[in-house]
C-alpha cells in the first residue's frame, strides 16, 4: 500500500498502481488519448501530464506511466499542467484539425489557434499506437506495425500490402480515438468481371490494412456475425470443436446441468476455458456440476466433455 496526495486529497492505493489509475479510482479526471485498461501504459499522447512533487522537487510527468508512490504530492490541474496540456492540444490541432475529439479538447481547453504548420496537414492519425498495441497485446495477431520515422511515421500493414496476419477482428477500429480506421461489414453481393458475375457471401473489409474476409453466418438466425479467421483463431486457442462457431452468441443458450445424470466427475470444469463451472460438494460422493452464468459465455464446451451427457 502507498499513501499519496492528489489535488490535496489523501489517497491510499495498492502497490503497482499508476497515478492515472489512482486518480480515476477517486473520480479525478485526467484526459488521455493513448491509454486503455486492457493495454500496458505507453505514454505517447502526453495529454495526461501532471505535476509531481517528490522529496521537495516538482516535475511534469505522464500520469499513465508514473507509479503512485508513497508520499507523492500530485496536482492534475495546476496552471503549469493546464499550460502544458494546451501546448500539446495546439500541436494536435495543427496535425489533425478535423478530428472530432481533438476539436472537442481544443474547445474545452480554450485553444483557438493552431501552432504554425508542422509539415503535416489535415492528418487523422495521432500515432497513439492503440491499434498496434491492441493487435499485438490483446489479439496477439501482430498484423500491423509502425512504419517510417520522424514526421514520416505511420501505422501500416507490412510493406503497405494486404496484412496477411490480420483476422479482421476490428479491434483496431474499435480502440482508435480518431475513427480513421475504416471497418465495413458488407452484405452478400456479387463479384463481377467481364466474363460474368459470381455471388460472394457477406464480408468484412478493413480498408487501412487492405484486408477482406468472409463473415460467418449463424446457422440458426442466418445473421453474419464475425469474420471467419477470427473465429478460427479463437477455436484454436481454446480448443473448441470445429462446429462450435456455427451458432452466433445471441442464439446460444446457457448450459443446464441434469443433476440426475451428473456424477460430479468434473470433466466439464476441467475443460471450461473461463472457469464458469464449479463443483458443488454436498458431502461424500455427492458432487454436482454448477454453472455460474455470470462467468459463462455459453460456449457449450462443457457439453461435449460430459461423459454422462448431463449438460445441455
Amino acid at each position, binding site marked *: 500500500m502507498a499513501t499519496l496526495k492528489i489535488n490535496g486529497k489523501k489517497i491510499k492505493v495498492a502497490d503497482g498502481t499508476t497515478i492515472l489509475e489512482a486518480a480515476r479510482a477517486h473520480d479525478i479526471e485526467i484526459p488521455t488519448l493513448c491509454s486503455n485498461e486492457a493495454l500496458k501504459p505507453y505514454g505517447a499522447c502526453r495529454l495526461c501530464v501532471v505535476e509531481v512533487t517528490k522529496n521537495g522537487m516538482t516535475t511534469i510527468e505522464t500520469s499513465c506511466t508514473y507509479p503512485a508512490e508513497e508520499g507523492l504530492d500530485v496536482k492534475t490541474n495546476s496552471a503549469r499542467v493546464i499550460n502544458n496540456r494546451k501546448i500539446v492540444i495546439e500541436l494536435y490541432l495543427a496535425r489533425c484539425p478535423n478530428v472530432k475529439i481533438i476539436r472537442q479538447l481544443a474547445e474545452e481547453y480554450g485553444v483557438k489557434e493552431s501552432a504554425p504548420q508542422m509539415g503535416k496537414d489535415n492528418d487523422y492519425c495521432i500515432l497513439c499506437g492503440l491499434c498496434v498495441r491492441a493487435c499485438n497485446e490483446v489479439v496477439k495477431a501482430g498484423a500491423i506495425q509502425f512504419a517510417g520515422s520522424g514526421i514520416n511515421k505511420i501505422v501500416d500493414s507490412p510493406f503497405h500490402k494486404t496484412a496477411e496476419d490480420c483476422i479482421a477482428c476490428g479491434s483496431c477500429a474499435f480502440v482508435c480515438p480518431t475513427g480513421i480506421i475504416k471497418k465495413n461489414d458488407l452484405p452478400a453481393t456479387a463479384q463481377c468481371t467481364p466474363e460474368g458475375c459470381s455471388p460472394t457471401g457477406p464480408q468484412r473489409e478493413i480498408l487501412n490494412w487492405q484486408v477482406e474476409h468472409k463473415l460467418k453466418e449463424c446457422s440458426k438466425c442466418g445473421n453474419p456475425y464475425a469474420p471467419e479467421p477470427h473465429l478460427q483463431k479463437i477455436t484454436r*486457442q*481454446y*480448443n473448441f470443436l470445429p462446429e462450435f462457431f456455427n451458432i452466433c452468441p445471441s442464439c446460444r443458450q446457457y448450459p443446464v446441468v441434469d443433476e440426475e445424470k451428473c*456424477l*460430479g*466427475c*468434473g*470433466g*466439464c*470444469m*476441467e*475443460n*471450461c*476455458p*473461463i*472457469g*464458469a463451472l*464449479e*463443483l458443488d*460438494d454436498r*458431502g*461424500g*460422493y455427492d*458432487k454436482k456440476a454448477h454453472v*455460474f452464468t*455470470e*462467468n459463462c459465455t455459453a460456449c457449450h464446451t462443457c457439453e*461435449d*466433455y*460430459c*461423459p*454422462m*451427457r448431463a449438460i445441455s
Partner: protein
Amino acid sequence: MIYDLAIVGAGPGGLHAAKWANKKGLKVALIEKRKDISKITRYCSEHIILDEDYNGDTIKVDTAAGKIISTKNGWEVNYRGQFCPVTDKYYYSPKQYAVHFAWPNGRPFAYKYGKGTLLQGLLDECLALGVTYINETTAYDVMENPSGVELKCVSKGKKFKVNAKKMVAADGASAQLAQKLGRNNERGYFGFALCLAVYMSNVKTYKPSDWKGWWGRCYGTNLAPLMGTGPEGHFDWADMIILGSPKEPPEKTFEYFTQKGPMAFMFENAKIEAKHCCTTKAYTPLKNPAKGHSIMIGDAAAFVEVQAQGALSCGFRAAEAVAKELDGKNGFEEYNQWWLKSFEFNDEGMMQVTTGYALIPTYTDDEIDYLFSLCHGHTLDGSWSQYKSPKMMWNLILKDPEKIKRERPEVWAKIQARGTQTLSESINK
C-alpha cells in the same frame, strides 16, 4: 502476497510437489478445484504399477507398513488404505481367444489402491507442514510476467488473483494452463475420450486379481471395454470401464456390452453399486515442460497419463527444480532432461508401438480372432505397461511370419502396413 510457488491441482503430483517444496523452505500455495479430495468422483483406475523400470522408475510396495516406495527417484509415500494385488491380465478376442500376461507363482504386477486415501494422507502432511491450501477454487487462466506468474482464480463465481514467483501446473490431462500459456501449440492433439466406470457386485467369473479387456466390434465399440478391480473397500465389486465419445456415449456401449453383447451372461445377476466417469484429452508429450516461470507436471505434460507413481515422481522432481531455480541454479533444465529420459512416451520408438495398438477398426473381428489364436495358450510376462504389453503380444504373433503369410495373406498385408509410420507422422496426417 507473493508466494514462492503456486501449485495448481491437488492430485498426487501437486500434493507431492507442495510437500517437498515446503520442506525445502518455500512459501507454497496449493490451489484445488474440489472441496474434499478424499472422495474422488473423477474416475481413475487407481493402480500402482510394479513393472521394472516403468517410466524411469521401479516401484516397490510394502503392504504391511503401508508404504509406496520409489527405488530410482528416491521418494516414499505413506498410504493407510488397503491394497489388492493384480496378478493376471487377459485380452480377449470375439471368440474368446485370450492373450494372457502374468508372472509365475502369482507374483503381482500391480496393486489396486485407494487414491482418495492416498491424497488425503498427503494433504494432511502438507497442512501440518503449513502449506497454504486454497480449495474449491479453479485457476482458469495464467499470465507470465518478468517476475513470475499471475493466476486468475474463481471460487463460487467470485474472481481473484494469486501471484507467485514460480508455478507448477498439475492440472491434469486437460492441460488448461499449458493451453493458456500457448504451450500446447507445439503438441499434437488426438482428441478426447469420455470414460464411464461402473462398479458392480455379483459379476460372474469376476476375480479381484484380474484385469480384462475385450477386443472386437462385436462388443459394441472400437475402444475395448475393460474390467478391473473394484474400489478400495469393495474389491469384491467389478469395475467395468467403457470408453466413448460424444457421438458414441459410453452409457449406450455399457448397456449393449452388459445386456446384448457376447459377454452379457456375466451380468445376469449383477447389481450396479456406483458409477464414476471422466474425460481425458490426448496430446503428444511436451518436450520442455519446464520453461519460463512454470513447470507442467504429470498428465498436464504427458501423452494421456503418467499414473499416480509418475505424478509423484514429477511432483518430487518439480519441487527440487523450483527450489534450485529460485536459488539461481538451472533446476528447470535438469527437470526437462529428467522428464525426457524417464517417460516412455518421450521415446518415438515406444510411441510407435501404440500405433499397432489400434486393433479395431484396422482388423475385422475374424482377423482379431486369428491374431489372438496365435497367442492363445501362452503366458506373457506380467506387465501393465501400455507400451511393453502390445510389444510383447506382437512379438509373439510375429514369431512365425511365414505361417501368417501362408494362412492369412490379407492379415499379413495389414501387419506390414502397421508401424511403418512414426507417431508424429500419423498425427500430422
